[in-house]
């Protein structure tokens, strides 16, 4: 018995396409020839190696990796199903089709479960070309899917890295800008203090603009730092009692509340799984905005929460000036402002920080409002842990 195997093929095919290299595991030369003929008849330009034991099979795989393995189920010195072990060992993804005499249904199903792509009876070889086509097609799709998954994973990776770089850049830039800017601000203020009224009225105005600009830029940089800090410091999550953080927010806003005559109420708020400092900032920013953007009436602000699906949904509602729907998204962008600084102070960082915090804690934030008729800012925080979810199921 030759372990080098034999090569069969048809060189004079009228139809040169499609080319196919097959590796036959077959002890019967006549059966091998029949298989090749069946393929040639169907238009395959087939090159086939024929082997009948493990050693020859392995050698042939390494020498000329085939596109398909066609293996007899029973061989004198080997078993067709064991070709799968060799393919696995060699790290090859090559479809293996059993080409066999009578093979009971139970055995056939078992073989396919174990990794055979298909099985074709020797007295039904007409079905073989179609079986091979389908096997090759499936392999191609498998590879494409794998490629797409890999590309996606790589993109996600790149995106995460460039995001991290950007955070780092914003932090370093704003941190290092502070130092020289502090000097500009201090010395323009010193100039203004010492020379206002001693030069001419233009000089006074220029000094005023220069020091105002410097001070405003300082505030912007502080804001940018605060914004980038939300991403830099990993969220320290724990159980946060939203009643407590809301109360703390109200204390920080005490003077604004007093000045405006605001009435802020809140229902029973839940305990959520989030970063405490960040949640406190969200409540304070939203309530602060509700007071700041007030109408003619004294502000009436209400903070509520309810369970919606797998989330706690919070709302901070007010009777203020409201927001036209076309601005409902842009207000969450860094440094976006809808009003002149003289009308409503601020840099447009508060909502951007809220959005970043909420998204980092797994939730969403949006506004429901009409110009002139109050706003309701809503955000979600996912329910956390089996206890909370179980309770959800009971209620």
């Amino acid at each position, binding site marked *: 018995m030759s372990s080098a195997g034999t090569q069969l093929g048809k060189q004079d095919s009228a139809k040169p396409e499609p080319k196919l290299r097959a590796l036959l595991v077959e002890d019967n030369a006549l059966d091998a020839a029949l298989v090749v003929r069946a393929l040639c008849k169907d238009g395959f330009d087939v090159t086939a190696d024929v082997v009948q034991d493990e050693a020859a099979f392995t050698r042939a795989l390494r020498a000329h990796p085939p596109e398909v393995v066609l293996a007899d189920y029973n061989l004198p010195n080997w078993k067709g199903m064991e070709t799968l072990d060799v393919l696995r060992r060699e790290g090859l993804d090559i479809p293996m089709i059993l080409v066999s005499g009578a093979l009971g249904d139970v055995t056939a199903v078992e073989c396919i479960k174990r990794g055979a792509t298909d099985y074709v009876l020797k007295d039904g070889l007409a079905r073989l070309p179609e079986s091979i086509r389908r096997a090759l097609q499936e392999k191609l799709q498998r590879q494409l899917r794998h490629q797409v998954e890999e590309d996606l994973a790589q993109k996600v990776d790149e995106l995460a890295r460039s995001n991290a770089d950007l955070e780092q850049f914003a932090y370093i830039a704003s941190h290092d800008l502070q130092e020289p800017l502090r000097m500009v601000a*201090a010395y323009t203020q010193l100039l203004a203090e010492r020379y206002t009224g001693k030069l001419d009225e233009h000089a006074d105005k220029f000094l005023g603009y220069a020091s105002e600009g410097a001070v405003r830029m300082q505030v912007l940089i502080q804001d940018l730092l605060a914004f980038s800090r939300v991403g830099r410091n990993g969220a320290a999550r724990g159980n946060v009692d939203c009643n407590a953080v809301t109360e703390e927010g109200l204390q920080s806003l005490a003077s604004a509340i007093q000045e405006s005559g605001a009435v802020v109420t809140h229902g029973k708020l839940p305990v959520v799984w989030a970063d405490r400092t960040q949640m406190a900032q969200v409540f304070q920013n939203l309530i602060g905005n509700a007071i700041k953007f007030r109408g003619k009436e004294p502000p009436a602000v209400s903070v509520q929460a309810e369970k919606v699906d797998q989330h706690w949904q919070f709302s901070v509602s007010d009777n203020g000036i409201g927001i036209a729907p076309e601005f409902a998204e842009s207000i969450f962008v860094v440094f976006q402002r809808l009003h002149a600084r003289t009308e409503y102070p601020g840099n447009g960082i508060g909502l951007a920080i809220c959005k970043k915090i909420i998204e980092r804690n797994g939730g969403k934030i949006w506004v429901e409002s009409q110009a002139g008729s109050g706003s309701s800012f809503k955000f979600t925080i996912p329910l956390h842990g089996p206890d909370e979810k179980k309770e959800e199921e009971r209620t």
Partner: protein
Amino acid sequence: MKTERELLIVDDNPADVGLAREALTRCAYSGQIRSVGDGVEAMAFLEHRGKYTNAARPDLVILDLNLPKKDGLAVLAAMRAGPDLRRIPVVIFSTSQLSRDIVRSYELGANCYVSKPGNLKDYFSAIKSIEEFWFGFASLPQRGV
């Protein structure tokens, strides 16, 4: 007999030193103000080395953290390791508001940590407070004992 006060400012930014001088002038500080621009110079000054052989021993050091050659924390550590220098009160005066820097400063024996305010008025009042406390209320160790 009351000797003249000696203050050493360690800061690499002349503009900052200028602001501190301005602030001290305004609050009627009448002592000497010396300044050096990096950590190595600061140690030479304090240890009377090189061109500082005749330098006066400061009663108070205002020390920036971010310094060339030898940073403020290293200067602080070196001061606290010296038998005489360890008695000199050190006020850390830095832009940094990082809790890491603040904690480390106190660990190394800083007497006080003050963040440099960004705003001129606050800057002046910070310097004024430092001057009033250390040269007004606080009793300082006698020199050259």
